[in-house]
């Protein structure tokens, strides 16, 4: 798409660079906004006001924070493994950034239109685990190590139900290409996968609760993959201080932070693309009605960002409501509840599709 368009007159390599930088234009403002948004949401939930001093209602607070983080001294603990310590935040951020390549922001923009898009995203976010493990090991801190071990176990386990749910969808639509998946859910809100996709008749009625359950499962598992409450045990500030990034400060810490918020959006984007109609509007497009076709992709981008941010908001809402699970209970939730249930859904849906 955008890559093909640019490479037609600039050549492949500059096109790749440009196409690769486009998500950055989105992620950094998003992260700045999301941090601000999280503070405000949490503050108002707790009868507070949150940041109010920098800019209108503290709107520029995160920019001030970033400026502060940039100015901070880059501290590396003397007993730390320096190369690993320095690579880890970059690797973590790379993992979450690379996931954006296959996410269709609108019908006109998708970084790379890969046929195995979903699997690519799942695979690439595995890099995050490597980054976290590196950070935990290289910090030479027991809390970091415990946090990293927990997060590795957690992320690896929670990928299983995610993939099973994706498999369920695959058995319904026969494609793992996120662009095609999004296109399948076009034209009508009830074509969204959460409402059973394009399947018609009695099957759809049976599918709706199943799909709803599948949506809940994938939302929970992705929540666990980005280490958010109630699954934030790798960071668990009350027991592990702050887990794998205890020893990080300044820009390296900011990298982890950025990666966390980028990841939050990435998983919400996946859930959106898979279940909530991707970039499609639930109502139809203004651009089509008034005949300006170039407005449609922009509207689509708006809808995509809107759905993504809405899901991110729900993540925040959960975080400021719930306590945290314990490490063994986390595994219990995954292995005893989510995996059997997702298998069950997978079986029923596959049977339905065969019928």
């Amino acid at each position, binding site marked *: 798409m955008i890559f093909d368009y640019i490479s037609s007159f600039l050549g492949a390599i500059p096109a790749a660079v440009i196409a690769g930088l486009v998500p950055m234009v989105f992620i950094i403002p998003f992260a700045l906004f999301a941090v601000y948004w999280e503070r405000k949401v949490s503050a*108002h939930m707790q009868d*507070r006001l949150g940041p109010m001093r920098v800019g209108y209602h503290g709107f520029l607070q995160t920019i001030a924070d970033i400026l502060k983080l940039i100015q901070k001294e880059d501290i590396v603990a003397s007993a730390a493994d320096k190369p690993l310590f320095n690579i880890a935040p970059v690797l973590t951020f790379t993992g979450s950034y690379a996931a954006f390549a296959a996410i269709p922001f609108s019908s006109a923009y998708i970084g790379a239109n890969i046929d195995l898009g979903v699997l690519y995203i799942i695979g690439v976010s595995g890099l995050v685990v490597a980054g976290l493990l590196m950070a935990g090991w290289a910090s030479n801190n027991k809390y970091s190590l415990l946090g990293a071990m927990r997060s590795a176990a957690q992320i690896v386990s929670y990928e299983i139900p995610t993939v099973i749910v994706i498999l369920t969808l695959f058995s319904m639509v026969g494609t793992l290409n996120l662009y095609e998946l999004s296109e399948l859910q076009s034209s009508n809100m009830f074509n969204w996968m959460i409402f059973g996709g394009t399947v018609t008749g009695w099957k759809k009625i049976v599918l709706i609760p199943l799909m709803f359950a599948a949506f809940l499962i994938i939302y929970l598992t992705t929540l666990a993959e980005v280490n958010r409450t109630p699954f934030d045990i790798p960071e668990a500030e009350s027991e592990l201080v702050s887990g794998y990034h205890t020893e990080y400060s300044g820009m390296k810490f900011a990298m982890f932070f950025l990666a966390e918020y980028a990841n939050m959006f990435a998983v919400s984007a996946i859930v959106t693309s898979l279940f909530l109609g991707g970039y499609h509007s639930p109502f139809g497009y203004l651009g089509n009605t008034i005949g300006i076709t170039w407005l449609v992709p922009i509207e689509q981008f708006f809808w995509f960002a809107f759905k993504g941010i809405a899901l991110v908001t729900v993540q925040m809402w959960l975080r400021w409501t719930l306590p945290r699970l314990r490490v063994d209970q986390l595994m219990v939730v995954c292995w005893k*509840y989510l995996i059997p249930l997702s298998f069950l859904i997978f079986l029923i849906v596959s049977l339905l599709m065969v019928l």
Partner: protein
Amino acid sequence: MKQYISNIYSALATVFIGMKITFKHLFVPAVTIQYPDVRVTLPGRVRNRLYVNMDDCIGCDQCARACPVDCISIETVKSVPGEDLGKTSNGKKKALWVTKFDIDIAKCCYCQLCVFPCPTECIYMTDVYEFSEFERENLVYSYITLTKDEVLEKKANFEKFEAEKAAQKAAPKPPAPEKPAPPQA
């Protein structure tokens, strides 16, 4: 199996109840205030920085003795007959020059124990609570109204008076000595 399903149900149900509560609180007005712009009105009995009204102080040292952390230090010099120190607002006659009245407010524990024994109610706690300093020495407040020279003068006066008194005492015994006896420390 029943347990399994009820676990799922109770987990989801309690999560939703919790989410409902937090959602309700999104629209509750905040209870915090924007501090330097908005300030709470403090009740009348509030205990913050100590203040001494030196016009009323008679230098009786009772507050310093009541203080559990010894943050008040008072030094006084007796007045010489003929000097009029005035009266306090509740009619007590002053008899001492207060040459030192320092409160180390950094040590103060705001317990108000110094306020109660004061016979003239000249030491009390105000509602000023913003008085941080960069240097600890600046937190030692001196309340005396006399200047340094005056303090020296009063001391000298008193010493002279003491010396005279000693001289008078000494006078009747032997014939008057050439020099007055050295003043007692």
